[in-house]
C-alpha cells in the first residue's frame, strides 16, 4: 500500500511539531524518517498511523483519503518505541490479541489463531518464549515480539517508532539487518523513525531527513550521504569538522587549501562555512606540493580500523581527523608531531550562501 502525506501540519499548543509536510511513500519501500529529537518525525509517524489527528492536511492510503479513518480502520501495524507489550498477557496472547478482538464473524478459530501465532513466533525466531510474560524478556526479544504482534493482523503498512532506540549497540546491529531481511521477505510498506543516521543509511530504501517539523531532504541513502541538500543534512549524517573559511577571487581558502566556490554562493560572500568529514583528511610529515595547512597532534586513539587523531591547526582550531590504520603505522605518528594536513578528495561541503555582513566571523 502506498502512503501519501499532503500538506500536513500539527501543533501542540504553541509548538509546531509538523509544518506543512508532504511526502510520498511508494508501495513496498522501507523508508526512514531521520532527524534529531523534536524534529517532528514521531508525530508524523503517529499521524500516518491515526494516533494523532493533523490540524490540517491529509493522509492518503493507495490514493484514498484516510485522514478521517480511525486507528482501527487504518489497519496499520505499529511498533512502539518502548514496545507497549501487554504486561498482563503471555507472549502468545500478546501476538494473538489482534486476532482475538476481531468481531466474531471475522475472528479466526482458536486453532487458526494458534497456527498463525506459531508461524509468527517462528518468523521472529522466538518460538520457545510463547508462555513467558513481557517482563521476563530481554529488550531485543520484546522488540521482536512487538513486531510479531503488529504483523499478526496482516497490516498493509508497518510503522516503527525508534525500533532500536532502547537496545544496546550489538543487539541493535543484529536487529537492523534482521529487520531489513524481514522487510525484503514480506514486501510491505514500512516507515521507521530514527535519530541514528547509521541506522537510517543502512536499513532504509529512502531516507527522509527532518528538522524543526519540516522535511529537509528525501533521497536514497547514497544520495543524502554524498549529495546533502544543506549543511544540516551534511552535519547530521556523519561526524563533521566545521571551518570558517575566507573567500577570495572566486576561491575558498582553508589555510593553504584552495577550493572552488560553489555555484549557489552569494555573489558578495567573503566568508564561507566548510564542512569536512574526519576521514577526508590525509596527514603528512613533509609538504606534498598540493594545498595544505599545518597542525599539531594533540591526541591519538589507535583502537579500531580507523585511527582517530585530534589536531590543533596553526590558527588554533581543533580538528578531528581519521586515517586508516596502515597509514598511521606508515607515518609513525606521535603526540606532539607537526603535520601537514591535506584533503583526500573534494567531497567537502561548502556553504557560502550567507551575506557577508550576516556572518561576522
Amino acid at each position, binding site marked *: 500500500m502506498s502512503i501519501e502525506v499532503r500538506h500536513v501540519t500539527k501543533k501542540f499548543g504553541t509548538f509546531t511539531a509538523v509544518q506543512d509536510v508532504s511526502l510520498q511513500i511508494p508501495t513496498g519501500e522501507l523508508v526512514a524518517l531521520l532527524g534529531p529529537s523534536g524534529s517532528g518525525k514521531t508525530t508524523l509517524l503517529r499521524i500516518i*498511523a*491515526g*494516533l494523532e489527528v493533523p490540524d490540517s492536511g491529509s493522509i492518503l492510503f493507495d490514493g484514498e483519503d484516510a485522514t478521517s479513518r*480511525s*486507528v*482501527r480502520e487504518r*489497519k*496499520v*501495524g*505499529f511498533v*512502539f518505541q*518502548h514496545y*507497549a*507489550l*501487554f*504486561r*498482563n*498477557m*503471555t507472549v502468545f*496472547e500478546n501476538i494473538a*490479541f*489482534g486476532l*482475538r*478482538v*476481531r468481531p*466474531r464473524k471475522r475472528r479466526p478459530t*482458536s486453532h487458526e489463531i494458534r497456527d498463525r501465532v506459531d508461524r509468527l513466533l517462528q518468523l521472529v525466531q522466538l518460538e520457545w518464549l510463547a508462555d513467558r*510474560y513481557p*517482563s521476563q524478556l530481554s529488550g531485543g526479544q520484546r522488540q521482536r515480539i512487538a513486531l510479531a*504482534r*503488529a504483523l*499478526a*493482523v496482516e497490516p498493509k503498512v508497518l510503522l516503527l517508532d525508534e525500533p532500536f532506540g532502547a537496545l544496546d549497540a550489538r543487539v541493535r546491529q543484529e536487529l537492523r539487518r534482521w529487520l531489513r531481511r524481514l522487510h525484503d521477505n514480506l514486501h510491505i510498506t514500512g516507515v521507521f523513525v530514527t535519530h541514528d543516521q547509521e541506522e537510517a543509511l543502512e536499513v532504509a530504501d529512502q531516507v527522509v531527513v527532518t528538522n524543526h517539523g519540516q522535511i529537509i531532504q528525501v533521497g536514497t541513502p547514497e544520495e543524502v550521504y554524498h549529495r546533502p541538500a544543506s549543511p544540516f543534512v551534511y552535519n547530521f549524517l556523519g561526524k563533521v569538522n566545521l571551518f570558517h573559511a575566507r573567500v577570495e577571487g572566486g576561491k575558498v581558502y582553508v589555510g593553504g587549501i584552495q577550493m572552488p566556490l560553489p555555484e549557489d554562493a552569494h555573489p558578495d560572500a567573503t566568508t564561507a562555512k566548510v564542512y569536512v568529514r574526519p576521514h577526508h583528511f590525509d596527514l603528512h610529515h613533509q609538504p606534498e606540493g598540493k594545498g595544505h595547512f599545518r597542525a599539531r597532534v594533540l591526541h591519538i586513539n589507535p583502537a579500531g580500523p580507523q585511527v582517530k587523531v585530534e589536531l590543533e591547526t596553526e590558527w588554533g582550531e581543533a580538528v578531528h581527523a581519521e586515517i586508516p590504520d596502515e597509514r598511521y603505522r606508515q607515518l609513525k605518528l606521535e603526540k606532539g608531531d607537526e603535520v601537514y594536513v591535506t584533503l583526500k578528495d573534494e567531497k567537502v561541503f561548502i556553504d557560502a550562501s550567507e551575506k557577508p555582513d550576516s556572518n561576522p566571523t
Partner: protein
Amino acid sequence: MTSPIIAEPAAKASRTITEPPLVKWMLIAIALAFLALVLLVPLVVVFDQAFEKGIEVYFAAIREPDALSAIRLTLLTAAIVVPLNLIFGLAASWCIAKFDFVGKNILTAIIDLPFAVSPVISGLVFVLLFGARGIFGPWLIAHDFRIIFAFPGIVLATVFVTFPLVARELIPLMQAHGIEEEEAAISLGARGWQTFRRVTLPNIKWALLYGVILCNARAMGEFGAVSVVSGHLRGLTNTMPLHVEILYNEYNSVAAFAVASLLAMLAIVTLIAKRLVEWKTHRPFQAADSIRQEED
C-alpha cells in the same frame, strides 16, 4: 514524641544496625508498647465490654429491631455508595491519566476536596442545599421528596466523603502505565470496551480492589457527615455508627459495644483483605496468571 522513634529504624536502617542491642530492643519495646496502648487495648476493650454480660445479651443487643435496621441501612448505603464511587473513580482516573484537557488540574484538585474538608462541614453543606430552609428545600418540599433526614441524604453525604478513595488509588498507577498499551490495543483493532476489559482493567484491578475496600470501610464507618444529615431517627435513618452513639448516650454500654464490635470486625476483615491485595499486587506474574484471556 513517639512516632519519630518508630520512623527512625526504617529511615536510617544502616545506622540503627550499628546501635548497641540494648538501644535497639528499647526502641522496639517503646514502639510495641505504643501500638498496644493506642491500637490493641481499645480493640480488646470493645470486645470485652460487648461480652461483659455474656453472649446472650450480646446477641440480643444485635438482634434488637433498631440495631438490625441500623445494620441494614449501613449495608444498603455501602451497597449503593461503593459502586457509584467505583464507577466515578474509574472514569475520573481514566480521563485524568489518559487524556489531556483544559481544566484537568482543577479536576485533580477537586477530587481531593472531601479529604480536605471536615466531614461535619460536608454534611452541613448538604443541609444548606437540600434542607427545609436550604436552596432547593422549598422545591423538594413541593414535590414531596425528602433528602435531608432521609436515606438519600445519607447516601449523598457518604458518596461525598468517600469520593476520592478509588480515584486516588488509580490515578498514580494509570499515570505510571501511560497510554502506550491502550494505543497498541486500538492499533491492533480493539474497540474501546475491549481495550478497557482486556488491557486497562487487568493492569489496574488490584489497585481498584484496594480502593474499593478502603471506600467500603469508610462508607460503613462514616459518622460526622452522616450524623448531620440523618436526623438520628431510630429504626429509620440510624446507621451503625450513629446507633452506637445513641446507645452509649443512653448508658446502654453493652449494646453500644456489641454493635461497635461489628464495626471493629469489619475493620479487621478490611485490614486482612487489604494485606491480601497488597501481597497480590507485588506478585505480578501470579496476578497475570489468574487472568488468562478467554474467548469473548
